[in-house]
């Protein structure tokens, strides 16, 4: 089996290597990929959308449909993780607590667990001792990550950035909190319900922007129709419409990243994390 696999790989590699030698050189400005379609976007993005970042304008305007369904794919992935892991909720048979005055670890069974007790501290089964330096450092870093995420979303028109990147950064800040403290602490401040609602809200903002264009009497996702709403000319309205859509993407991506992490790190139990 291994020999067969290696032979297949070798054959595929040699064939690919042989035929890619016909491809244009690396960085060739005259290559077919850069001469047919992309010059249009580079030359017309300013007069069409007033967004200097061509990637943003192509992503959210010229190719808005694709990005909308891309966001839906992410939402579907979050839902799939949820349905696969979360649907079968088993009872937690036992939990570990530490009796703080004595430092004794107790294994409790049944369904009567101390809640919000000052004496008993909840522990994970494979508990790592509480690390002061790590948790404090992360607490210091997290606000800056979140500010940077908002900057990346809001400044996506003029610098590298946009909804996807900002959303992932925002999600990473909450995941960092869950890793450095505990999964339960993260769920307390950003619950699964919030994540589910926000991920749907993000897709709704995107599709809603498109529907708003319909209401204003033009084609779906043609942001020029929103000009009376923003009080600007039709080109600037496209720029504002792109920002609305990017915010929707950011909200959806943030929530889905956190949601997937919650379900994966605890195998769907959302009780003891990594």
């Amino acid at each position, binding site marked *: 089996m291994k020999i067969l*696999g290696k032979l*297949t790989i070798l054959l595929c590699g040699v064939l690919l290597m042989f035929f890619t*030698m016909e491809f244009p050189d690396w960085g060739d400005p005259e290559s077919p990929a850069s001469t047919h379609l992309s010059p249009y*976007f580079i030359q017309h993005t300013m007069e069409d959308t007033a967004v200097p970042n061509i990637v943003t304008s192509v992503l959210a305007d010229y190719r808005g449909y694709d990005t909308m369904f891309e966001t839906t794919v992410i939402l579907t992935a979050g839902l799939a993780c949820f349905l696969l892991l979360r649907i079968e909720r088993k009872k937690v048979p036992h939990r570990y607590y530490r009796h703080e005055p004595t430092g004794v670890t107790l294994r409790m069974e049944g369904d009567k667990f101390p809640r919000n007790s000052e004496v008993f501290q909840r522990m994970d089964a494979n508990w790592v001792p509480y690390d002061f330096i790590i948790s404090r450092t992360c607490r210091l870093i997290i606000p800056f990550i979140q500010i940077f995420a908002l900057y990346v979303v809001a400044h996506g028109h003029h610098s590298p950035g946009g909804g996807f990147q900002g959303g992932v950064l925002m999600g990473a800040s909450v995941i960092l909190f869950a890793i450095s403290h505990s999964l339960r602490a993260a769920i307390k401040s950003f619950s699964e319900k919030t994540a589910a609602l926000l991920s749907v809200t993000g897709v709704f903002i995107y599709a809603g922007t498109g529907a708003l264009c319909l209401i204003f009497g033009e084609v779906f996702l043609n942001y020029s129709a929103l000009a009376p709403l923003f009080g600007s000319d039709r080109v600037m309205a496209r720029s504002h419409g792109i920002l609305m859509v990017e915010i929707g993407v950011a909200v959806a991506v943030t929530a889905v990243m956190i949601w997937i992490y919650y379900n994966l790190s605890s195998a769907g139990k959302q009780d003891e994390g990594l």
Partner: protein
Amino acid sequence: MESIFALVLAKANYVAYIILMMVGLYAMIVKNNLIKKIVGMTIFQTAVILFYVSIGCKRGATIPILEHHASPETAAHGAEKIVAHAMDAVNVTHYINPLPHVLMLTAIVVGVATLGVALALAIKVYNTYGTVEEDEINQQLRSG
């Protein structure tokens, strides 16, 4: 010999993506562990992303963000002046091809989401069979 070396150097990006892709494909078809297969799938995906992004490269060009200066007066007068300012000279060879970047931007995030689904399936398999080794799962399936 010299010419072959020059040829490979001129197409170094393709060589890199083929090597990465073959590493990923090898892990996907030969490895027995489901998690290792998933890792292979991710490497394969990275190879495709590398291929696309390297296609967009142009020698001597910069990132696909049109040069624009929001000086205080243009900022005060709204977007029309920025548009007018940026439009006077857009040379296509100054900016790299933005289309592969747009495609890969979404592909990376969707890739992470599908990776999550794959890992969720692996967790489900582990909960059902108590292992993620493929041959052991097959054995359990055969013995019923």
